[in-house]
């Protein structure tokens, strides 16, 4: 291993730290963390990776590290970087291989007590309706339908009998990004994705039955969250489709710009200048992958709803919101007092726009955007609401999860699946997983404390606590 250079991390206040630019860095690094979390970040390469991002061309403001950040490949996971549209870049690795990985939250009008008696049956039904793990097939679609999915996103699902328009109105971007261009999607991505629409995947992706455990503001009611009621959280993305778009474009950019590659401290930072043809093509392909992901979560949401209705015929299941946490977006932000269009990369970061933003669905415009943050398996997840401070401090972004702190290898050794399952059972959490190792690798002890991650976001004024959700049933790969 290379020796880690010592970075000069300076405390700004109890929740914000900073690294001033040195060497090739164009901008400072800003870190959202308390003392404990910043210490954990210093144990891996997260902050060095953020410094590398700060040295990329056209970066504006600061290279931002969220409170859940951990080391990634090239970029840290839990990072935000905004680039000038003229001088800046777009980077597949700065978005993540799982393009538009994200979270959808559904509410029900059922209480925990109503669901408990039928929980096993319900989990069984959802497990069948939402395929998890590898080698499982989702909705069968023709190549022509795949094209429609890429252009229409979740709208395709509604037009084909899955869910409702009301679901669409409660999604980031209405579940459809308009600049998708199927002709720039590599064939290999189409092949990889064609059997995967309506599937969850493996790793940290899941469908979870949760209960609203605590509410922190009157906003909860406006989001449809009532203490004691059951909700469902879906965490997944664009599956093999998005991974292949990312991999293929990394190789295309590499072949087109050997000089850029040679200048990088880590090849996974590879980027295309925003003005280039290749950047435009990647943009069209990335948006297509994002639409595939929106459609994927939408179909899963529909299938979850059907499972509930089979067991509780009179229940209502509504979509609260659907957020992306691996994405690049063209957004306008105020930089040095001026409105400026930027390419905002969020890799493991969630948009957190405040009340009044036109990019929030009408239902929430006066309240602020719902921010959905999944915890690790068996611990709490959170709903926050975007606050004004996010636009001033973090290009309208906040954290996206608990953040790993232990390798999967070590987790497998330290947390035998049977122990994890027994511990969860003691807390009243039933788990249905495709593999035992999935249970070990995602054990709660392998993650940071999500409550601490959220407290930073709340205290820094970028997204405020609305409700805490605790799991009662987990379905995973």
């Amino acid at each position: 291993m290379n020796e880690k250079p010592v970075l000069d991390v300076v405390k700004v206040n109890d929740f914000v730290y900073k690294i001033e630019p040195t060497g090739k860095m164009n901008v400072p690094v800003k870190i959202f963390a308390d003392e404990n979390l910043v210490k954990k970040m210093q144990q891996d390469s997260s902050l060095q990776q953020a410094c590398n991002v700060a040295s990329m061309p056209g970066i504006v403001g600061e290279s931002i590290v969220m409170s859940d950040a951990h080391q990634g490949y090239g970029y840290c996971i839990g990072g935000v970087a905004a680039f000038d549209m003229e001088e800046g870049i777009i980077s597949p690795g700065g978005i993540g291989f799982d393009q538009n990985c994200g979270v959808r939250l559904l509410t029900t009008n059922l209480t925990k007590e109503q669901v408990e008696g039928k929980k096993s049956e319900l989990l069984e039904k959802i497990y069948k309706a939402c395929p998890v793990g590898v080698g499982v097939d989702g909705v069968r679609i023709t190549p022509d339908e795949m094209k429609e999915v890429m252009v229409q996103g979740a709208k395709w699902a509604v037009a084909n009998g899955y869910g409702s328009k009301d679901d669409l109105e409660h999604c980031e971007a209405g579940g459809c990004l308009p600049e998708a261009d199927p002709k720039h999607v590599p064939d290999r991505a189409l092949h990889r994705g064609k059997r995967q629409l309506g599937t969850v995947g493996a790793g940290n992706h899941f469908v979870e039955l949760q209960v609203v455990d605590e509410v922190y503001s009157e906003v909860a009611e406006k989001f449809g969250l009532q203490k004691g009621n059951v909700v469902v959280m879906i965490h997944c993305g664009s599956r093999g489709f998005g991974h292949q778009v990312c991999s293929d474009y990394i190789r295309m950019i590499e072949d087109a710009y050997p000089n850029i590659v040679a200048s990088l401290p880590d090849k996974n930072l590879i980027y295309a200048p925003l003005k280039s043809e290749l950047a435009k093509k990647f943009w069209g392909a990335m948006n297509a992958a994002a639409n595939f992901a929106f459609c994927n979560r939408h179909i899963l949401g529909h299938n979850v709803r059907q499972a509930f209705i089979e067991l509780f015929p009179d229940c209502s299941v509504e979509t609260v919101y659907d957020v992306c946490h691996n994405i690049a977006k063209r957004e306008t932000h105020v930089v040095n007092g001026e409105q400026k269009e930027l390419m905002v990369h969020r890799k493991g970061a969630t948009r957190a726009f405040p009340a009044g933003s036109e990019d929030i669905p009408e239902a929430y415009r006066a309240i602020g955007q719902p921010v959905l943050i999944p915890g690790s398996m068996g611990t709490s997840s959170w709903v926050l609401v975007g606050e004004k401070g996010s636009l001033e401090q973090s290009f309208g972004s906040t954290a996206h999860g608990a953040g790993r702190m232990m390798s999967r290898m070590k987790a497998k050794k330290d947390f035998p699946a049977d122990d994890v399952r027994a511990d969860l059972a003691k807390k009243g959490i039933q788990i249905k997983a495709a593999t035992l190792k999935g249970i070990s690798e995602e054990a709660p002890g392998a993650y940071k404390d999500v409550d601490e991650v959220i407290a930073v976001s709340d205290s820094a004024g970028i997204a405020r606590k609305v409700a805490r959700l605790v799991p009662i049933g987990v379905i995973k790969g």
Partner: protein
Amino acid sequence: MNYELLEHTADAKFRAYGKNKEAAFANAVKGMTAIITDPEKLAKDREFPVTVTADDNKKLLFDFLDQILFLMDTEHFVPAEADVRIEGNTLTAALRGDDVKKVGGNLKAVTYSEMEITQQDGQWMLQVVVDI
């Protein structure tokens, strides 16, 4: 040693070794499979040919392993072993393995992060981080 798994906070890292480039690339197949299962315990009754061409070793390694992930999703195939031939810029391999449904565990993508290819005293070493 043919391969070993290494610690990585969020993803998975492995090293593969070989007395020549072909052997190291063949062991990289085992190393990547080892992230999700013991390759020695897999059946070898499914076979897929792979051909990739790239103008340097890292690109060749990336493309080779990427093609395996492609087969995992499209053919539900997981390789247990590989015969590898490399001539000039072109790698040709015969992969033998099993149905991925039997093992579970997902590999999302090959990355260039921390990728290393070294050759010292007649021993090749390949290091790869895989996004999982």
